[in-house]
Structures are given as C-alpha cells and as structure tokens.
C-alpha cells in the first residue's frame, strides 16, 4: 500500500540530514514496527506522512499514487496518532471527538456513527462527558487513538502509542492495534518498546541517523543471529590457546577478555564449538546460542552508546 523510496530531507540550518535514502513499505492488514533511537528520523518520517513536511528528494506513494495527490483527494486516508496528547484538554472526550470529526469532514449521522465507533473501539463510552484534562494517562492515550480512528483511515501511523500507560492499558492498546490490522488497515507502529514490537509487528524496520539499517519480517530478523554463539569464560585463555581455538572453529572468533563471540559457518555445530573451547582449556561460565531478542538485534545495529547527551 505505502511505498517510501529514497526519501531525503534536511531541516533548515541542520548540519546533517534527518532522512537519507529512506525506503520502506507498509502493507494492508500488516503491522510494520518502526524502531529507532531518539533522533533516528521516525518523527520526521511521520511528519512527511502527515503532509507537514515536503521531502527534498525521493517519493512517497500510496497504491501508486503520490502522497501529495492522495492528500489533496482524500486527506484523511492516512491517520496519525502522534506521541503527544494532540487534543484539547479543556474539552470533554465527546467534544474533542466532535471537533476532530468535523475537521475530518464528517457531519450529521456520519459524524455520530464515527464517534460512536471510535468510542467503542477504545472503550471510552463511559468517559464521553469527562473533560480530557481529567483523564488518566491510559485514557488519554485511548482518546488520542480514538481521534485517529474517526475518519476510518486506510492506514494509521501510531507514534509511541503506549508511553506512560499502565500494563493493563498497554495490553488493551496493543490488542486494539492488532484488531485494526485484522480489519485490513495498514499500521505503522513506532515505538521504543522492543517487546511491544516483538509482540505485535509482522515486519520491522530499524532506523538510525535517518537511514534504514534493517528491514524485514520479524521472524527473519530474529533468526539472523542463529549462527552466533556468545561465551563467557571463568578466566581468559592465553595467546597460544586462542590461536589454536581459532583454527579449530569453523567460523570467526572475536575475543574481548573472558568474552568470546563466535560467528559459525552455516552448517557448523555450536556443540562442537563449545567442545573445542573446553578442549583448549576454557572453563565456560555462560553460553548463549539461538534466537536473539529484538533488543539485541536493535542494539547490535545501532550500538549501545547514549544518544541524548
């Protein structure tokens, strides 16, 4: 459905571009997890999808039609649920929904139905008369989502939709997002929470410094680390033992003190590799092999240094 290709954007007076040759795809009925550290370019991408920024280069197309053209024809086709509580705190839930329904060009019965549908989808019926400023964090997140659902978009972009909510609200929101994809909607889910992406995403895009570092089905990303074996020894091996071990192992060996990182060949056995280490005098304290968590994939791609300092 959505095809972003070669997108390039630099903010005025910025030293480095916010997006560089940025490409991704989002499909109907699928949840695309968008992962990236602060300043990676996620919000800039969302601003482009919302029509708030004009790209310096590249294209955004929806079903072959340029986004600009689509927005002129159907501006509510892509809904955005921003990270901030983008509504009016002094208005009630219902008043907010009426305001944004009108802004979505809904009126009369269509507006009433859309409001009822959005309230039901987010279980906010009991809070329709409550002023938004008095809602809890979880309810505010739900209102943020309800507003995005008003115009029945074909695609929804959720930017950190669960920040600051309790586990129950998080579970509810994730379930709601799954339900949206199940109806055929394309969902882009940007989040820092790896476990959420791991729990709901069908495909994942990992971005940093405005570039796409890795894109693919979640299962594929997690399986890519299958040949890695990480070992921690009781004591470091001497130089001769390490040189001999490097010759024994069918793959590559990286050593940092007592930490050994093995990149085994496709058909090499991890059990045999561990046996080789013991045979060369290594006393294994801890060993990891097999499926990696998304967080480890993410950190290995984006490195672990602090960004906001």
């Amino acid at each position: 459905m959505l095809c972003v290709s070669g997108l390039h954007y630099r903010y005025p007076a910025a030293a480095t571009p916010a997006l560089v040759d940025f490409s991704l795809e989002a499909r109907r009925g699928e949840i695309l997890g968008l992962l990236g550290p602060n300043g990676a370019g996620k919000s800039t991408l969302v601003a482009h999808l919302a029509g708030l920024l004009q790209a310096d280069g590249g294209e955004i197309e929806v079903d072959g039609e340029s986004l600009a053209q689509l927005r002129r024809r159907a501006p509510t086709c892509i809904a955005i649920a921003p990270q901030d509580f983008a509504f009016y705190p002094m208005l009630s839930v219902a008043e907010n929904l009426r305001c944004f329904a009108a802004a979505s060009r809904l009126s009369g019965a269509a507006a009433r139905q859309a409001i009822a549908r959005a309230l039901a989808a987010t279980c906010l019926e009991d809070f329709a008369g409550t002023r938004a400023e008095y809602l809890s964090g979880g309810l505010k997140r739900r209102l943020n989502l309800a507003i995005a659902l008003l115009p029945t978009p074909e695609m929804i972009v959720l930017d950190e939709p669960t920040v600051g909510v309790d586990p129950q609200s998080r579970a509810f929101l994730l379930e709601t997002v799954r339900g949206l994809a199940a109806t055929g909607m394309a969902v882009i889910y940007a989040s820092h929470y790896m476990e959420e992406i791991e729990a709901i995403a069908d495909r994942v895009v990992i971005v940093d410094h405005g570039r796409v570092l890795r894109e693919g089905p979640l299962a594929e990303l997690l399986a890519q680390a299958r040949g890695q074996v990480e070992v921690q020894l009781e004591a470091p091996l001497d130089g001769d033992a390490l040189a001999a071990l490097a010759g024994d192992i069918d793959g590559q060996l990286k050593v940092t003190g007592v930490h050994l990182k093995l990149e085994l060949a496709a058909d090499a056995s991890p059990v045999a590799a561990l046996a080789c280490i013991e045979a060369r005098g290594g006393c294994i304290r801890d060993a990891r092999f097999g499926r990696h968590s998304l967080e480890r994939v993410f950190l290995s791609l984006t490195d672990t240094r602090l960004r906001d300092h």
Partner: protein
Amino acid sequence: MLLALIRKELLALVRDPHALAALFLMPAAFIVIMSLALQNLYAPPVRQLPYAIDSATDSPAARRISATWAMTQGRAQPLPATSGEVEEALRQGRLAYVLTLDAGLADALSDLDPPRAPVVHLRVEPGLDQGAFRTLQAELASAVGELRAALLQASFTGESPRGSQSILPFLSIEQLGSTLRPVSAVQQNVPAWLVFGMFFVVTAISSLFVQEQHNGSLARLAALGVPEHIQILAKALPYVVVNAIQAALMLTVGCALMPLLGGEALSLAGIHWPALILMLGATSLAAIGFALLLACLVRTHAQANTLGPLCNLLMAALGGIMVPTFVMPGLMQQLARLSPMNWGLEGLLTVLLRHGDLSEAAPWALRLAIFGILGLALASRLFSRRIIS
C-alpha cells in the same frame, strides 16, 4: 468544519476564567475606577472646596466681593481665630483656601492707577491640584475685575451698573458635540478602556495557540487536511463576537452603572451609529490581527502571558489610554499617534463626543484596518512554520 472549530475556540475561552476576567471584568473595573478617580481632573470641584474669608474692612466693596463669592462658591467657613490657626487649617487641608481682603480694597479698586501692593490675597492648601488652583485664580480675577469696573463706572458717571455686574451675560460659550458640556472622566475612560480591553484578546488567543502548538493539535488538524485559512478564521471570528460583547458591556457600564456609582453617565444620544460600528469593527480587526501575529511569534506559555500584556500596556501608555493625550506635551502627543490604541480611542472619541459621522471616523478606521490586515497577513505566513515546529 469552520463552525466546529469556532465552537472549540469558544468552549476553550468560556472554560478559562482568567481569560474571561481579563476580557470583561478588567476593562469594566478600569472604567469604574479610573472614571471615579479622575473625575476631578475633568471637572475641578472648586465649588465644593471649604474656604474662609479674612476681611480687614467692612466696606461695601468687601461685602460685595464676599457676597459674589458666596453665590458662586458656597458659604464661607468660619475664619480661625488666629493667623497661626489659619495657617494650620490650610496645612491640614481643613480649609482649601483663604481669601484675604485688605483694608484699602475699595480705594485701590476705585483708583485709576494700579495698587502699590496687592489688596486681595488667595492662599491655598498645599495639596490643591493645579486644575482647581487655576480655576480659583481665574474666578477671583474675574470677580475683582468686575467689581473694579463697576466702581470705576460709578466714580466717572455717578451711576452703578444696572443688574448683574458679571461679564458672563456678554459672552456666549458653546462646546460642539452631543453633551454640550465639558468632557467628563466617563466619556474619556469608556472608549479608552474599551479599546484596551478589546486588544486584550491577545492573551486568550496566544495562550490557546501555544497550547495547541505544543500538544500537536495544530499539526493534527493540518494532517487532517484542515486548510490554514480555516484554522486562522476559526481563531479570529470568535473574538469578533467577544469584542462585540465587550463593547456592549463597556458602553452599558458607562451609560447605566456609572451614574449609580456617583459618576457622570455616558451619553449615546445623537451619535452616528454606523460610525460607531465602523470604529468598533476596525478596532476589533486590529486587535485580532495583532493578537494572531503575536500568537504566531511566541513559543512558550510564559512568552504568551507576558509579551501580549506588555505590548498592550506600552500601546496603552503611549496611546492616551492611561493618560489622556491632551495632558501630554506636544512631542508625546505626536508619539501617541503611533499607537494603534490611540487610533481606536481617537476614532471612538470622534464618534462619541464630537458626533463624527462615517467620513470623520474613516481615517482612524482605515489605519486600524490596515494594521489588522497586516497582522493577519504576517500571521498567515508564520502559521505553517508554527505547525511544523
């Protein structure tokens, strides 16, 4: 869509008691307080001042001056027994002034030559304002002059003037305008603080704008395809209504409330209503244009809550809202013409006091309209940048 966004603006406003107080209570309170406080500036209360006459002679001339003075200024207070007590009464303000008539009064007034020394003395208390002081001085000079003329006429012709000796019957004094009486504090303060209050929409508009900008509501509306001109119109139109309510309220305060509080009533009799509506509309346009421009310039709530009122206070101080321009020196009066609030005030005074019609109000309205349109145009240019930021 526009109606829903206007409704949102109005709901946000009516649920903000501080903004409501700034828009309606503050200018009304200023009208009441400043009108009562400045009442004496416009009408010095010389006829209510406590005074005493210290006459060293019982001549007919002295008796005539005392009688004339009592007719115009009210009955004299008893003169304290000693000169020390007189001094004390003046210093403490128990007596506003003492009129001293010397023994040679009658001879001096009848003599063709000027006196070697003054024969009538006016001593006033230290706190008497300049307006009252000058009025007393003029009235005393007039009374003494009239008496001298009468005495000289009698000495030359042997006849005293018939009837009143006052010069006033020889004069015709007319002030053009509806009231046919001097400008009162109410007539100055109602239009002045109405203009000030109308410009105070800046706080309400910029506060909500900053909030919408920070929480992403503006960006969300833009993402939904709401055109910028609709967003700007939705912000401007509710405040036209607010300005209209302000005008109705402030004029009612001037016409109905001020007399109940002991002030003069504002009179709308005979004014040119289309000219008044033109001036109010132009002032509203200027106030809203300025407010939207400022709203697009500020970035934080602190800036919104300080910069707008600060600009308003400066424009008010310069523009004759707080201090009437007619008491300003020439240079300050010229500087006052730079303030849009002065254009609004002068235009309203033209309509309310001078019964100006559309052609007379138009120059002021035109300046305000150009100012307002410029503000709106600049705000429109800045609006999209604010959404993205």
